[in-house]
């Protein structure tokens, strides 16, 4: 059986630790001022980036990781809406099979698409989930953990606060699973309207609705992006109301030593004020660098000889 990265849920704690360790080496290379020396790890391999949902950052990060490992990349950007309803996925699967690709990186606005592709694609094609609906975004959670570990060391018993739109967030779900596996204490801070029912029980986290003093004793805060594109209805009054309750304002960040993470792109003045996004506690650019390193580590792990 070849490896896939369908979600954090399927990874053991050892596999997570292994992936994080592998990414450290790549991170050092990325951080050095010497020109990047292309690796030949994916020589002769073809990776298809199937982005059914727009994403500049994640797609660029995957493409860079692929190129630096010597893979041939093909990009298929398809807005689900512009395709004939229903036919897109099966058709795409057939197209991929015909092109002789070794790996598929897939992002889709529906939960479960990587799983569905696994059912339809031949076994030898590896699948990486680059974000499916509100379900999982495993490479984001891995890069967040790598970023956190670099600053905090072991995450065991560290208080990590996740703030904002939990309901629609695959980043939150993958992070909750991963941080739990690494022994961190996760607290969610979100309005009731953006908190999925039974989330405490299903993900083993603490849930509060008031920011109050929650970040004062936190080791890190992961602020989530308000996903306007997923909000078909009114789930909070307006952006300034949201900022008043959950935004990382200058006053709030003064009260804490917690590091600040955000999966990007940031809605400045909503989730984060400039003072938070650009402060020395902000790890946002570190996350971006770690993102490429993690994706390189994932390819290494998927394609290593076993």
């Amino acid at each position, binding site marked *: 059986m070849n490896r896939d990265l369908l979600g954090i849920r399927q990874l053991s704690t050892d596999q997570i630790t292994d992936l994080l360790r592998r990414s450290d080496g790549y991170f050092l290379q990325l951080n050095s001022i010497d020109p990047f020396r292309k690796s030949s790890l994916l020589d002769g391999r073809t990776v298809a980036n199937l982005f059914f949902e727009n994403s500049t950052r994640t797609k660029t990060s995957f493409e860079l990781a692929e190129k630096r490992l010597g893979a041939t990349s093909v990009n298929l950007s398809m807005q689900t809406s512009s395709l004939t309803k229903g036919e897109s996925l*099966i058709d795409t699967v057939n197209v991929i099979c015909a092109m002789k690709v070794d790996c598929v990186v897939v992002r889709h606005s529906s939960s479960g698409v990587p799983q569905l592709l696994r059912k339809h694609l031949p076994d030898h094609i590896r699948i990486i989930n680059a974000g499916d609906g509100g379900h999982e975004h495993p490479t984001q959670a891995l890069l967040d953990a790598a970023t956190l570990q670099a600053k905090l060391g072991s995450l065991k018993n560290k208080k990590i606060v996740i703030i904002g739109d939990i309901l629609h967030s695959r980043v939150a779900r993958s992070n909750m699973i991963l941080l739990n596996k690494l022994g961190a204490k996760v607290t969610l801070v979100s309005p009731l309207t953006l908190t*999925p*029912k039974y989330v405490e029980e299903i993900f083993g986290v603490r849930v509060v609705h008031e920011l109050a003093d929650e970040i004062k004793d936190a080791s890190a805060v992961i602020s989530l992006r308000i996903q306007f594109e997923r909000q078909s209805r009114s789930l909070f009054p307006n952006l300034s109301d949201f900022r008043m309750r959950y935004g990382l304002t200058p006053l709030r960040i003064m009260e804490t030593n917690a590091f600040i993470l955000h999966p990007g792109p940031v809605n400045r003045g909503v989730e984060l004020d400039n003072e938070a996004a650009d402060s020395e506690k902000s790890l946002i650019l570190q996350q971006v660098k770690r993102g490429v390193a993690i994706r390189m580590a994932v390819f290494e792990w998927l394609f290593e000889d076993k």
Partner: protein
Amino acid sequence: MDVLLLNCRIIDPVMGRDECGVDIEIISGVITAIGKKLKSKAPIKDLQGALIAPGFFDMHVHLREPGQEYKETIETGTRAAASGGFTGICCMPNTEPPISDPFVVSFIRAKANGNIVDVEICGTMTKSRKGEELAPMQALFDSGIKMISDDGSAVASAEVMRRVFEYGKMFDFLCTEHCEEPSMTKGTAMHEGKISTKLGIPGYPSVAEDIIVARDILLAEYVGGVRYHVAHLSTRNAVQLVREAKSKGIKVSCEVTPHHFTLTDEAVETHLANAKMNPPLRENEDIQAIIRGLQDGTIDCISTDHAPHASHEKETDIMSAAYGIIGCETAIGLGLTNLVHSGKLSLMKYIEVSSTNPRALMKLPQIKISEGEKANLTVIDFDKEWTFGSEHIQSKSSNTPFIGTKLKGQPVGVINNNQSWWRDKD
């Protein structure tokens, strides 16, 4: 059609009969003799103790014709019904065009004419199912319609629903509602609960169904005397609402589907779009409430909500996939396995909810298994253990999560309209 059925177990709630080792002679589609050790010139069929019940009736079938013949046709849908043990069905009106005028009714009648399966037709409540103006009820009534529904969606406006009840009452129509408050379910793909939280799939809350059931019961009580029917009821609160309304003497009835008493929202994790239904698969507590509702008579009948869709509409991502599964071929297997063999419902009661009650709601004559009566019969191998597979599917579509499911009890034949269908031994 002449046949001498040997060694039957006749079970007939209308005649109050449950008798083993009986032979039945049928000549030209009419029961001519019932007794032990009958002699006849008719060809012999040894049933080896199989059950003979009054023909099962499925009140909620989507035949898709006219308009969506790539999913199902009247021919393939009735074949699915017959092989599922049904001698009668009612087809739902969300066709293209919808069953809003007598021309569509006569089109379906013509196509179903001469079929072994009786096809009753449900008309729309509102013109073209838009939920705005009343459907031409007199014309629909004159073409033989007995049930009206905007199935596929609820009538969103309480004012329109009130008028549907008032006008519909004059024809004593069974007013069947698909109970879904649309403002709460837009963009959802499964039940809102633990599993939707886990999978990050937008959830359709139970309360969206309960609100419409409650509203309609209040309206039905206010209008008074209208026959109101809840289609494919799926929640514990809706069962309780119907129970209370019945105890107050309001003319409310309801049906459940086999998938809603068999599966929970957990099925979405493995079956993805093939477990996407409307209403969605709910929770174990809902299944328990449905079973209690069947036991105490709150729930009147089992209907399949047979909803065929082509593979490209189901083998896709869950958000854009179509709602529903085919249901005729698995109904009896699931019902006997999960209700009767499990000891939750008596066989007699099961036959009532599968034949007697739906026929009463549809104002159809009751079937009696006795001499001189037309033979309208469902034949069931009660103890047959089998695994449902694609070879059992007669429908044009095969969207079902039940492939590979082990079942006990299988329909093996139907007799109706001077015709018979028998399952090949497998």
